[in-house]
């Protein structure tokens, strides 16, 4: 079997706010092309961990390596360049409400590429078509549904053809069918783009449907207590808490 290449390495990360430690000594690796799930109960620090992985919040201790490059020890300009290679879908979508969908997707292209407005327009149409929103270019975020907003935000996240796509609670606020469509879309994009995908979620259906690998964060011990394929953890994990979580408390 072909050995998978490591894309992201998390080394002894301790995170928190002020004196409060949320999680300590987190160490795991994310393979290139994998869909990696960060799971755990509400308030365990999943989103905070994602913010550390994408460079929005610094850890109290530890390192995040993208290949050989340490995200938090890198020169600010290098870190900025690295962050541009990451696409992030925030929990609320976080589309800029004063801009239309095409302006939302076009902004990173205008800022970080030297493309002409026609070329940017073509790329924007393509990205919106990829998420099933062709023709919705002139709509404002407030004029479309929650599911469509999530997809539009995904189109924006993909604007610069990122190497890693991060999803923070992608299913939050979506009906089961929309949630399934989003999961299918994540799988399709991983297959076709070959991107590494990191998903923060506690939606069991999504975890089992798309996850190749995962970590489980435990708020009581304030550390990760399990890692591996979610389906494997369901049947084989020695941690009762993990099985309890993955079987909805049964």
């Amino acid at each position, binding site marked *: 079997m072909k050995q998978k290449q490591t894309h992201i390495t998390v080394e002894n990360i301790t995170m928190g706010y002020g004196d409060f430690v949320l999680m300590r000594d987190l160490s795991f690796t994310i393979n290139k092309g994998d869909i990696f799930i960060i799971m755990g109960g509400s308030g365990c620090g999943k989103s905070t961990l994602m913010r550390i992985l994408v460079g929005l919040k610094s850890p109290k201790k530890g390192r995040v390596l993208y290949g050989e490059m340490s995200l938090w020890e890198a020169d600010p300009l290098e870190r900025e360049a690295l962050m541009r290679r990451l696409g992030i879908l925030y929990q609320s979508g976080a589309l*800029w*409400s*004063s801009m239309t969908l095409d302006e939302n997707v076009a902004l990173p292209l205008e800022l970080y*590429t*030297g*493309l002409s407005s026609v*070329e940017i327009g*073509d*790329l924007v*149409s*393509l*990205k919106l*078509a*990829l998420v*099933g*929103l*062709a*023709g*919705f*270019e*002139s*709509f*404002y*975020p*407030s004029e479309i549904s929650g599911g469509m907003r999530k997809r539009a935000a995904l189109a924006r996240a993909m604007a610069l*053809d990122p190497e890693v796509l991060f999803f923070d609670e992608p299913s939050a606020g979506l009906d089961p069918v929309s949630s399934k469509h989003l999961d299918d*879309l994540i799988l*399709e*994009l991983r*297959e*076709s*783009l*070959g991107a590494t995908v990191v998903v923060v979620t506690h939606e069991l259906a999504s975890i089992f449907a798309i996850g190749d690998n995962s970590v489980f964060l435990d708020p009581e011990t304030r550390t990760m207590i399990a890692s591996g394929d979610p389906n494997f953890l369901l049947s084989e994990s020695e941690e009762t808490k993990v099985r309890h979580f993955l079987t909805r408390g049964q």
Partner: protein
Amino acid sequence: MGVADEQIKMSFSYPSDSTLMIAFNGIWKIDQALPTAEEVKKQLEKGPGVKQVAFNSDALIKWDSGILTFIMKVLTECNRLKVQVDKNGLPNGVQQLLKLALAVPEKKDARERIKHIPFLEQVGSDAVHFVHSTGEILTFLGESFVAACKLMRGKGRFRSFDLGLFLEENGARALPIVSLISLLVGLILAFVGIIQLKLFGAQIYVADLVGIAMVREMWAIMTGIIMAGRTGAAFAAQLGTMEVNEEIDALKTMGISPMEFLVLPRILAVTIMMPLLCLYANLMGILGGSIVAVGIYDVSAMAYFNRTKEAIGLNDLGIGLFMGLVFGILVALAGCLRGMQCGRSASAVGDAATSAVVTGIVAIILATAVITIVCDVLGI
């Protein structure tokens, strides 16, 4: 030569009379100068009866969205000329992405939203909007009045803590800016007046000028404008953000009237604090005037304050305080009205705050005109 320096190439060949083969070579990424689909269009139009387009990507090194936008254009052109496309020669990832992009048909009618609106239609639309917004304002005023009546009957529902907070926010915390503006305007007014009065040796009457102008109208208007900019905008932004975050909907679903719970304590707080702020602003303005008269033009402090006391009547003070009360209500109403009318976006919150300030200031000026005319008619 590095990989990044590989020149992008696209070549055409005709494996059969009816097939155009497009061969990709090198790196096709958006940060490179990519060929345009125009070249394919020319080949299709000049080719001898091309019925099919095929691709060869054997020499393609790297690709990203750049190649996809190119192929999408080729597909559109082929569709227009009714030429078949064989996508098998494309990389698997490109084929999958194309399938995804073409899975949902484009919403055709959505683009029609951008259109030129004829002048008359715009005028009509604005007129309808004006009538509609007037109705909204009257409804808001009515609801505020009902909420105030409920309060007077002891049935108004809001947290007394909120009222205390707004009293502090719009009273004590407004003192620094009111002090600064009042002192400086008093100073300026005294300067302008005293230069003219000195020509007649009547410097002492600067106390009359500053005192009457301030107490009767000037400071109520100044304080009103300060509060419109400070408090009106804050109310609109607070309520607007609550609207965006669906907090107002949450109140409604719990059966709590936003008018009582959110609007009433704000109006009450500003109504209580405005006359007090006006009174304080009067004192600061008189102090400003005295600094000029006493400090620079050698008028004695005792003479200045005696002259001020003589010049200002109880009527002037009463009218000034009444104006402060009215302006307080108007500023609070304008802020709350625009906040409650706010849309569900960040820009709508900004618009609401701006609109609250403009509405507040216009209302203050209109009310000043009305009160001044009424006072004149009544001979007060």
